[in-house]
């Protein structure tokens, strides 16, 4: 009698092995599902919107007639919006990240700030819209201006940039910091000339990804009451404006089927802009991240 019966083992193994193989392919299909959806989504949008995507579409204002409706006001409006959101969000979030990583004492208050930021990240965007409506639009009487919407979006993306910046700052090795302080540099000299430059690729990547989220965000703009039928572009941050996602939403909601094609054309423009921003972010992350 042999201790190990090869036949029995082989018999048991084949079943288990083939189950392993079957599930491997199942899991692989699950993974490919995301890619398939992405391809379908892009193909569907291109098929619907391609015929409408021309120079007129990019240079016309919106119109109630489908033939002449354009995206110009929305593109310019979204640029204005980002001109407000980007600097405000950068100053607030990078400042917060620097404080938390470099200056904050280890105590209950710092812990509270950290918990607060992670909770803020989980607040639905539509609730930020309500904050914007009550605080900026009504209480500060900014109306549905670029400034009101820009500040609302800046608060919304703040946690995203804070977390990305914190990670980037934390990745700077302690030895670099110690070397700087050992050479007699002050705290701020170390932070501004050594740590920030080393962390900047990670911070910029976080900023770009956050801004690309802000550009596509619709819900807060609906709540604030951003119009969709203006025929002028804003001339200051106190003016009313249009925005790309808001315009797309209003077209999607139109009963006339022609507007679905225009919405698709708008989506193509928005996705191309987002794709460009994402590529830049990935490029910066891969190219400029310092390795120690």
């Amino acid at each position, binding site marked *: 009698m042999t201790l190990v019966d090869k036949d029995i083992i082989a018999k048991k193994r084949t079943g288990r092995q083939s189950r392993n193989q079957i599930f491997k392919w199942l899991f*692989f299909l*699950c993974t490919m*599902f995301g890619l398939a959806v992405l391809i379908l989504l892009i193909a569907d949008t291109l098929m619907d919107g391609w015929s409408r995507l021309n120079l007129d579409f990019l240079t016309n204002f919106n119109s109630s007639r489908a033939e002449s409706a354009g995206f110009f006001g929305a593109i310019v409006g979204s640029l204005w919006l980002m001109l407000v959101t980007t600097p405000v969000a950068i100053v607030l979030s990078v400042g917060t990240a620097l404080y938390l990583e470099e200056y904050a004492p280890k105590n209950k208050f710092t812990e509270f700030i950290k918990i*607060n930021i992670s909770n803020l990240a989980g607040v*639905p965007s539509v*609730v930020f819209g309500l904050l914007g*409506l009550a605080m900026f639009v*009504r209480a500060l009487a900014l109306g549905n201006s670029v400034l009101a919407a820009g500040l609302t979006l800046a608060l919304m993306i703040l946690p995203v940039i804070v977390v990305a910046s914190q990670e980037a700052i934390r990745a700077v090795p302690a030895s670099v910091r110690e070397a700087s302080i050992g050479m007699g540099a002050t705290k701020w000299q170390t932070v501004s000339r050594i740590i920030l430059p080393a962390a900047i690729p990670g911070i910029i990547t976080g900023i770009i990804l956050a801004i690309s989220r802000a550009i596509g965000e619709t819900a807060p703009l609906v709540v604030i009451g951003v119009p969709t039928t203006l025929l002028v572009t804003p001339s200051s941050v106190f003016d009313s404006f249009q925005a790309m996602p808001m315009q*797309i939403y209003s077209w*999607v909601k139109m009963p006339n089927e022609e507007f679905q094609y225009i919405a698709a054309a708008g989506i193509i423009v928005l996705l191309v802009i987002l794709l460009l921003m994402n590529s830049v972010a990935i490029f910066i992350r891969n190219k400029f991240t310092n390795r120690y």
Partner: protein
Amino acid sequence: MSNKNIRDQIINNTRNKSNIFERMIPVILLLITSVSILATIGILVTLLSESFEFFSRVPITEFLTSATWQPYVGDGEWGIWALIMGTLKIVAIAVIFAVPIGLGAAIYLSEYASDRVRRIIKPILEVLAGIPTVVYGFFAINFVNPILQGIYSGFGLYNAVSAGIVVGIMIIPMIASLSEDAMSSVPTAMREGSLGMGATRLETAIRVVIPAAFSGIVASFVLAISRAIGETMIVSIAAGSMPNASFDVTEPLQTMTGFIVQITSGDAAFGTDLYYSLFAVGMMLFIMTLLMNVIASWFTKRFKEEY
């Protein structure tokens, strides 16, 4: 000056005004940091004060117990359960759809895939996660719903299933990448132990890695649910605007977020019941997502303590 020695120069340097500047920096940064707290306070004060105004007009008992939401009929009927049920239907469909696919993808990425495959797939998931929700809404109504209607003609133009499936698609990247993170942080030694005893990769994944990463995986589900509760544009576009508490998923419905969008895009006049109801619904939404986030962070913390 040459008669000053280096020590004096250093003392002199540390005493000049750059020292004041140096001490101002933490104060300025602390002020900047406090904006994030102000934002939270702003949200709470806004929601609470406007909700109080609403509950001075509409009894809170009606709000919390009734399941009829009809703001336009007479003085209005304000039973939030109609909206909560709408949200829950969407979340349930989304979770049923997204959890198996997201978890399957996570298992493949963490247990089967080579580094090269992972490096290709992960950015694709990131792109999928970065697509604006208004685009997903367009996809729901122009692509998913026509397919559903082809399968079963009972589906209307707006229904819970198409919106729910697309919300599911939206949260798949989140479940996949967070669960994958949790599984990847299970020590390789445990995996090697299992494989060394003759278990297949499938058996290792299901009996060793998933139980070990369980609380991290649950945290990813809970976070995804929180996202689905707060999701606005997909349901505004594809789920319709008919608040009801029925279980029929072929009918249109309205979620809490969908209500807020419907009312604000139709210009709710300041000071009306309708205007204040926005904030009461927003409060409920805020509480539900906050609860989910707290539960998720509890699971994450437990997971981190284990490893």
